[in-house]
Protein backbone atom coordinates (compact mmCIF):
# COMPACT_ATOMS: atom_id res chain seq x y z
CA UNK A 1 0.00 0.00 0.00
CA UNK A 2 2.79 2.41 0.91
CA UNK A 3 4.64 1.51 -2.29
CA UNK A 4 1.54 2.10 -4.38
CA UNK A 5 0.92 5.50 -2.79
CA UNK A 6 4.57 6.49 -3.25
CA UNK A 7 4.57 5.63 -6.95
CA UNK A 8 1.16 7.26 -7.45
CA UNK A 9 2.12 10.55 -5.77
CA UNK A 10 5.69 10.51 -7.12
CA UNK A 11 4.68 9.94 -10.74
CA UNK A 12 1.88 12.51 -10.44
CA UNK A 13 4.30 15.08 -9.03
CA UNK A 14 6.94 14.41 -11.68
CA UNK A 15 4.30 14.52 -14.42
CA UNK A 16 2.98 17.79 -13.01
CA UNK A 17 6.47 19.29 -13.07
CA UNK A 18 7.12 18.03 -16.60
CA UNK A 19 3.86 19.45 -17.92
CA UNK A 20 4.52 22.77 -16.14
CA UNK A 21 7.77 23.04 -18.08
CA UNK A 22 6.47 21.88 -21.47
CA UNK A 23 3.05 23.55 -21.78
CA UNK A 24 3.13 26.77 -23.81
CA UNK A 25 0.14 28.37 -22.10
CA UNK A 26 1.01 29.78 -18.68
CA UNK A 27 -2.49 29.08 -17.28
CA UNK A 28 -2.15 25.38 -18.17
CA UNK A 29 1.33 25.39 -16.61
CA UNK A 30 -0.06 26.84 -13.40
CA UNK A 31 -2.82 24.23 -13.16
CA UNK A 32 -0.30 21.40 -13.66
CA UNK A 33 1.87 22.97 -10.97
CA UNK A 34 -1.11 22.80 -8.58
CA UNK A 35 -1.32 19.07 -9.39
CA UNK A 36 2.38 18.70 -8.57
CA UNK A 37 1.98 20.50 -5.23
CA UNK A 38 -1.04 18.42 -4.19
CA UNK A 39 0.98 15.28 -5.02
CA UNK A 40 3.81 16.68 -2.88
CA UNK A 41 1.33 16.93 -0.01
CA UNK A 42 0.69 13.20 -0.50
CA UNK A 43 4.44 12.54 -0.30
CA UNK A 44 4.60 14.50 2.97
CA UNK A 45 1.72 12.44 4.36
CA UNK A 46 3.63 9.25 3.43
CA UNK A 47 6.70 10.57 5.28
CA UNK A 48 4.55 10.84 8.45
CA UNK A 49 4.41 14.64 8.30
CA UNK A 50 0.66 15.37 8.47
CA UNK A 51 1.15 19.01 9.47
CA UNK A 52 3.40 19.66 6.49
CA UNK A 53 0.90 17.97 4.16
CA UNK A 54 -1.86 20.34 5.29
CA UNK A 55 0.45 23.37 5.08
CA UNK A 56 1.61 22.33 1.60
CA UNK A 57 -1.99 22.39 0.35
CA UNK A 58 -2.88 25.61 2.20
CA UNK A 59 0.26 27.63 1.41
CA UNK A 60 1.58 26.24 -1.88
CA UNK A 61 -1.42 24.86 -3.74
CA UNK A 62 -3.65 27.50 -2.18
CA UNK A 63 -2.07 30.88 -1.51
CA UNK A 64 0.95 30.90 -3.82
CA UNK A 65 -0.83 29.45 -6.85
CA UNK A 66 -3.80 31.82 -6.41
CA UNK A 67 -1.25 34.65 -6.50
CA UNK A 68 0.20 33.26 -9.75
CA UNK A 69 -3.24 32.85 -11.35
CA UNK A 70 -4.22 36.39 -10.34
CA UNK A 71 -1.09 37.81 -11.99
CA UNK A 72 -1.75 35.75 -15.14
CA UNK A 73 -5.27 37.20 -15.15
CA UNK A 74 -3.87 40.75 -14.81
CA UNK A 75 -1.31 40.34 -17.58
CA UNK A 76 -3.82 38.69 -19.98
CA UNK A 77 -1.95 39.07 -23.28
CA UNK A 78 1.62 37.87 -22.84
CA UNK A 79 0.88 34.59 -21.05
CA UNK A 80 1.22 32.75 -24.37
CA UNK A 81 4.83 32.63 -25.46
CA UNK A 82 5.52 34.13 -28.82
CA UNK A 83 4.65 31.42 -31.36
CA UNK A 84 6.40 33.11 -34.25
CA UNK A 85 9.81 32.43 -32.81
CA UNK A 86 11.32 29.01 -33.27
CA UNK A 87 11.42 27.07 -30.01
CA UNK A 88 14.61 27.34 -28.09
CA UNK A 89 16.12 24.03 -29.27
CA UNK A 90 19.73 25.03 -28.63
CA UNK A 91 19.03 25.96 -25.02
CA UNK A 92 17.04 22.75 -24.57
CA UNK A 93 20.15 20.73 -25.49
CA UNK A 94 22.35 22.90 -23.29
CA UNK A 95 19.94 22.43 -20.37
CA UNK A 96 18.81 18.81 -20.81
CA UNK A 97 22.26 17.23 -21.31
CA UNK A 98 23.83 18.56 -18.07
CA UNK A 99 20.58 17.84 -16.22
CA UNK A 100 20.60 14.22 -17.40
CA UNK A 101 24.29 13.92 -16.48
CA UNK A 102 23.65 15.39 -13.02
CA UNK A 103 20.69 13.05 -12.47
CA UNK A 104 22.72 9.96 -13.43
CA UNK A 105 25.55 11.10 -11.14
CA UNK A 106 23.19 11.70 -8.22
CA UNK A 107 21.46 8.34 -8.70
CA UNK A 108 24.75 6.41 -8.88
CA UNK A 109 26.07 8.39 -5.92
CA UNK A 110 23.01 7.63 -3.80
CA UNK A 111 22.96 3.97 -4.87
CA UNK A 112 26.65 3.45 -4.07
CA UNK A 113 25.66 4.10 -0.46
CA UNK A 114 23.23 1.20 -0.65
CA UNK A 115 19.48 1.55 -0.27
CA UNK A 116 18.82 2.99 3.17
CA UNK A 117 15.50 2.01 4.65
CA UNK A 118 13.34 4.63 6.29
CA UNK A 119 14.03 3.04 9.65
CA UNK A 120 11.58 1.94 12.34
CA UNK A 121 8.07 3.33 12.51
CA UNK A 122 7.97 6.75 14.14
CA UNK A 123 6.58 7.40 17.58
CA UNK A 124 2.94 8.34 18.14
CA UNK A 125 2.34 12.03 17.39
CA UNK A 126 5.37 12.47 15.10
CA UNK A 127 5.00 15.47 12.79
CA UNK A 128 1.67 16.66 14.15
CA UNK A 129 0.99 20.36 14.59
CA UNK A 130 1.70 20.03 18.32
CA UNK A 131 5.07 18.32 17.92
CA UNK A 132 6.27 20.72 15.19
CA UNK A 133 5.10 23.84 17.01
CA UNK A 134 6.89 22.73 20.19
CA UNK A 135 10.15 22.87 18.20
CA UNK A 136 9.14 25.96 16.23
CA UNK A 137 8.39 28.01 19.35
CA UNK A 138 11.11 26.41 21.45
CA UNK A 139 14.43 25.44 19.99
CA UNK A 140 13.97 27.30 16.69
CA UNK A 141 12.32 30.42 18.13
CA UNK A 142 14.99 32.78 16.73
CA UNK A 143 14.61 31.36 13.21
CA UNK A 144 10.84 31.67 13.56
CA UNK A 145 11.10 35.35 14.49
CA UNK A 146 13.60 36.05 11.69
CA UNK A 147 11.41 34.39 9.05
CA UNK A 148 8.54 36.64 10.10
CA UNK A 149 10.80 39.63 9.34
CA UNK A 150 11.50 38.12 5.90
CA UNK A 151 7.76 37.89 5.29
CA UNK A 152 7.25 41.47 6.51
CA UNK A 153 9.95 42.75 4.13
CA UNK A 154 8.31 40.72 1.35
CA UNK A 155 4.92 42.31 2.03
CA UNK A 156 6.35 45.85 2.09
CA UNK A 157 8.42 45.21 -1.04
CA UNK A 158 5.46 43.79 -2.97
CA UNK A 159 3.32 46.74 -1.85
CA UNK A 160 5.93 49.31 -2.88
CA UNK A 161 6.48 47.63 -6.28
CA UNK A 162 2.79 47.04 -6.95
CA UNK A 163 1.83 50.66 -6.31
CA UNK A 164 3.49 51.68 -9.57
CA UNK A 165 3.78 55.38 -10.40
CA UNK A 166 1.18 56.45 -7.85
CA UNK A 167 2.37 58.02 -4.64
CA UNK A 168 2.84 55.75 -1.65
CA UNK A 169 0.74 56.68 1.38
CA UNK A 170 3.76 57.38 3.57
CA UNK A 171 5.50 59.70 1.09
Amino acid sequence: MEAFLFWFCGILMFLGGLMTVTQRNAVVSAVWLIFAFVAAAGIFALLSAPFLAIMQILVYAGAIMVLFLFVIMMLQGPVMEDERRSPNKVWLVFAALPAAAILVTIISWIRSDGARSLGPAVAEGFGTAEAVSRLLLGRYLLAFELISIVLLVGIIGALALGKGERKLPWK
Partner: protein
Amino acid sequence: MEITLTHYLVLAAAIFLTGMVGFIVRRNALVMLMCVELMLSSVNIVFAAFSRVHGNEGGHVFVLMNFAVAAAEAAIGLALLVEIYRRRRTIDVDDLKALME
Protein backbone atom coordinates in the same frame (compact mmCIF):
# COMPACT_ATOMS: atom_id res chain seq x y z
CA MET B 1 9.10 -3.69 -2.91
CA GLU B 2 10.04 -1.59 0.05
CA ILE B 3 10.16 2.17 -0.44
CA THR B 4 13.53 3.35 0.85
CA LEU B 5 15.11 6.73 1.48
CA THR B 6 16.79 6.40 -1.94
CA HIS B 7 13.41 6.50 -3.69
CA TYR B 8 12.54 9.83 -2.09
CA LEU B 9 15.96 11.33 -2.82
CA VAL B 10 15.88 10.30 -6.50
CA LEU B 11 12.32 11.65 -6.84
CA ALA B 12 13.43 14.98 -5.34
CA ALA B 13 16.50 15.13 -7.62
CA ALA B 14 14.39 14.41 -10.72
CA ILE B 15 11.87 17.11 -9.87
CA PHE B 16 14.61 19.62 -9.01
CA LEU B 17 16.29 19.02 -12.38
CA THR B 18 12.95 19.32 -14.20
CA GLY B 19 12.54 22.74 -12.61
CA MET B 20 16.14 23.64 -13.50
CA VAL B 21 15.71 22.71 -17.18
CA GLY B 22 12.44 24.66 -17.26
CA PHE B 23 14.10 27.72 -15.78
CA ILE B 24 16.78 27.65 -18.48
CA VAL B 25 14.58 26.78 -21.47
CA ARG B 26 11.41 28.81 -20.89
CA ARG B 27 11.27 32.46 -21.93
CA ASN B 28 8.05 33.42 -20.14
CA ALA B 29 9.13 35.00 -16.85
CA LEU B 30 5.95 33.78 -15.11
CA VAL B 31 6.71 30.15 -15.96
CA MET B 32 10.33 30.67 -14.90
CA LEU B 33 9.06 31.72 -11.45
CA MET B 34 6.86 28.61 -11.34
CA CYS B 35 9.94 26.49 -12.07
CA VAL B 36 11.75 28.10 -9.11
CA GLU B 37 8.76 27.15 -6.92
CA LEU B 38 9.03 23.58 -8.22
CA MET B 39 12.73 23.45 -7.31
CA LEU B 40 12.04 24.79 -3.78
CA SER B 41 9.28 22.23 -3.37
CA SER B 42 11.57 19.33 -4.30
CA VAL B 43 14.04 20.40 -1.61
CA ASN B 44 11.23 20.19 0.96
CA ILE B 45 10.84 16.47 0.16
CA VAL B 46 14.50 15.87 1.05
CA PHE B 47 14.07 17.70 4.38
CA ALA B 48 10.96 15.67 5.23
CA ALA B 49 12.60 12.37 4.20
CA PHE B 50 15.67 12.86 6.39
CA SER B 51 13.45 14.08 9.21
CA ARG B 52 11.57 10.77 8.96
CA VAL B 53 14.81 8.72 8.92
CA HIS B 54 16.25 10.41 11.99
CA GLY B 55 12.91 10.52 13.82
CA ASN B 56 13.45 14.23 14.53
CA GLU B 57 11.04 17.00 13.53
CA GLY B 58 13.82 19.56 13.03
CA GLY B 59 13.53 19.08 9.27
CA HIS B 60 9.83 19.93 9.39
CA VAL B 61 10.71 23.31 10.89
CA PHE B 62 13.04 24.00 7.97
CA VAL B 63 10.30 23.04 5.51
CA LEU B 64 8.05 25.64 7.17
CA MET B 65 10.85 28.23 6.80
CA ASN B 66 11.08 27.24 3.13
CA PHE B 67 7.32 27.82 2.73
CA ALA B 68 7.76 31.37 4.03
CA VAL B 69 10.74 32.02 1.72
CA ALA B 70 8.79 30.66 -1.26
CA ALA B 71 5.80 32.86 -0.44
CA ALA B 72 7.96 35.97 -0.10
CA GLU B 73 9.79 35.12 -3.32
CA ALA B 74 6.52 34.64 -5.23
CA ALA B 75 5.08 37.92 -3.91
CA ILE B 76 8.18 40.00 -4.76
CA GLY B 77 8.81 38.24 -8.08
CA LEU B 78 5.23 38.67 -9.27
CA ALA B 79 5.17 42.32 -8.17
CA LEU B 80 8.36 42.88 -10.19
CA LEU B 81 6.79 41.14 -13.22
CA VAL B 82 3.68 43.33 -13.06
CA GLU B 83 5.87 46.44 -12.84
CA ILE B 84 8.04 45.26 -15.79
CA TYR B 85 4.89 44.58 -17.82
CA ARG B 86 3.59 48.08 -17.08
CA ARG B 87 6.76 49.68 -18.40
CA ARG B 88 7.75 47.35 -21.25
CA ARG B 89 4.47 45.64 -22.25
CA THR B 90 6.19 42.24 -22.30
CA ILE B 91 7.37 39.58 -19.87
CA ASP B 92 9.36 37.61 -22.46
CA VAL B 93 12.88 37.47 -21.06
CA ASP B 94 14.39 37.54 -24.56
CA ASP B 95 13.00 41.07 -24.96
CA LEU B 96 14.26 42.24 -21.56
CA LYS B 97 17.91 42.83 -22.35
CA ALA B 98 18.28 46.57 -21.70
CA LEU B 99 21.18 45.89 -19.31
CA MET B 100 22.90 43.66 -21.86
CA GLU B 101 23.26 46.23 -24.65
